[in-house]
């Protein structure tokens, strides 16, 4: 059929439609869309804006400082040198992960993916690169240097030549290596994942484990870090951070005792959730501990009597570790991983300490 000449063309039909209902309907639809969109998140009248009564809360613990010791301490230390700091010729630019004392009291520091060796006086000797993801280092009396990485131990000579290494931990559960020490031909490895200290020979054969004979079977490590050291008699001292204790162990895994407890008011106690986080043993058997939250270093007798306190004014308050070592002269080396500097503390008379 032929369309009406006047009214039947498609163009005319469209024109009529537009003129009749389409434009108002389109405008109405758009307005309805706007209204619907604007109220999409509206769920009716809101509850009154009354807030629950909130009693005044105590200030967060981290902002408060532990009280200082009321009794005079027997030993006093003063900072006598800074190694690898910002103004040093060999600054640690990215990381500082550990410190150890090698033969001749040479200072070994692990950071920026390197082992850097300094003379006892602080002058730079040499550096070499180590495997990636390293976490800690230790030194052997024969000059060898051992570094730990997740699930791995690597051994180097003093010149940086790689002598070998072995896997640490179980096949399906590699060790979270947080500390390594060499004692009597054995390599002792702190495994924070299994919460034990593993004993290996240098070929990687596991000889035993330390820390399994506690009431709960292992160390309690809320901060997921285990540190330890071995004294000249072969007594292992370890940080049981969740219990706020330093515990002593024989190499055969026999528990030999412990000292320490939580406390925020007395300097001999350990503050916060989990302390002490780091530990080293001096040649005379005294125990040096490092704490976080209140970043400080303390020196104890093996029985637990507090001898000295190196206060938080020496360290960055955000330190979650203060890596420690003690040289043959009793100088304490404390590596601050936030400021990336190794601080050297020497024994002084009481008056000199107060001047610092």
């Amino acid at each position, binding site marked *: 059929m032929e369309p009406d000449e006047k009214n039947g063309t498609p163009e005319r039909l469209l024109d009529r439609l537009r003129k009749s209902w389409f434009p108002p309907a389109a405008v109405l639809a758009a307005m309805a869309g706007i209204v619907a969109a604007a109220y999409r998140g509206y769920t009716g009248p*809101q509850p009154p804006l009354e807030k629950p009564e909130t009693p005044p809360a105590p200030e967060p613990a981290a902002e408060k400082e532990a009280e200082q010791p009321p009794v005079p301490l027997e030993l006093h230390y003063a900072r006598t040198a800074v190694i690898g700091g910002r103004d040093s010729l060999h600054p640690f630019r990215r990381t500082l992960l550990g410190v150890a004392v090698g033969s001749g009291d040479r200072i070994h520091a692990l950071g920026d993916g390197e082992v850097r060796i300094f003379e006892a006086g602080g002058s730079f000797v040499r550096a070499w690169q180590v495997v990636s993801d390293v976490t800690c280092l230790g030194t052997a009396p024969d000059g060898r240097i051992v570094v730990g990485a997740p699930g791995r131990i690597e051994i180097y000579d003093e010149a940086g030549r790689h002598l070998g290494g072995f896997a640490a931990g179980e096949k399906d559960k590699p060790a979270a290596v947080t500390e390594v020490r060499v004692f009597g031909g054995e390599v002792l490895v702190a495994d924070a994942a299994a919460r034990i200290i593993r004993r290996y020979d240098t070929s990687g054969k596991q000889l035993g484990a330390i820390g399994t004979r506690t009431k709960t079977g292992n160390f309690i490590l809320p901060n997921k870090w285990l540190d330890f050291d071995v004294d000249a008699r072969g007594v292992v001292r370890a940080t049981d951070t969740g219990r706020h204790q330093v515990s002593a162990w024989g190499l055969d895994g026999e528990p030999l005792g412990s000292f320490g407890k939580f406390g925020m008011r007395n300097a001999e106690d350990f503050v916060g*959730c*989990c302390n002490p986080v780091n530990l080293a043993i001096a040649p005379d058997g005294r125990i040096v501990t490092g704490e976080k939250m209140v970043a400080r270093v303390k020196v104890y007798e093996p029985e637990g009597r507090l001898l000295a306190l190196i206060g938080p004014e020496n360290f960055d308050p955000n330190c979650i570790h203060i890596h420690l070592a003690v040289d043959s002269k009793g100088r304490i080396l404390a590596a601050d991983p936030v400021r990336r500097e190794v601080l050297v503390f020497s024994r002084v008379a009481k008056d000199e300490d107060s001047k610092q």
Partner: protein
Amino acid sequence: MSEKSTRRQFIDRSVRVVGFAGIAGAAGLLASRVSGDAVYQVDPFKCTTCDLCRTACVLSLSAVKAVNDFPKCGYCMLCPAYMDVTSQPDEKGIPAGKICPQDALKRKIVGDVDEEDPNNNYYEYYVDEAKCDGCGKCVKACLPPAGNGSLRLEIRYTYCVECNECAIRLVCPDDAIVRIPTPGFPPAGSHGEVEND
């Protein structure tokens, strides 16, 4: 353009087309802003736990809640976010004060239980969202070096009413309330069913 169209008709049509396009565009823009493809959330790296999440939310009990990242948590006996470690200790030497003013941070022992020495226990910490008002005191107390930093503030969509413009975002001094895309997330309005106690 038809040959028979006059200039007046052409202008009339053009104005209508442009007007309609403008209205439709505005409607689409508004609809997209409240669509379920993006939601407000707290950026934990920007958040400084300033306490405005508690006071600025339009709800009487803020939709912002503390959440615990369990793999990061140390399961401490002496959790600095749970107890005020500087408060007076009880007879067992454990601090008696708590950090949360609402008592919304709870804990339970996991694993073997040592009744005699609590130091031998591991504790799992969880948030009672019906009480938590998003003040962030626990989050602040858990930050390193005191804690492991496992607690953070989060907008919980079971409570959030998804205002077109988040009232907290308007006042957040750290620009920590961000709009994040959530492809596949249920559209806005289909959640928010849980009532505040």
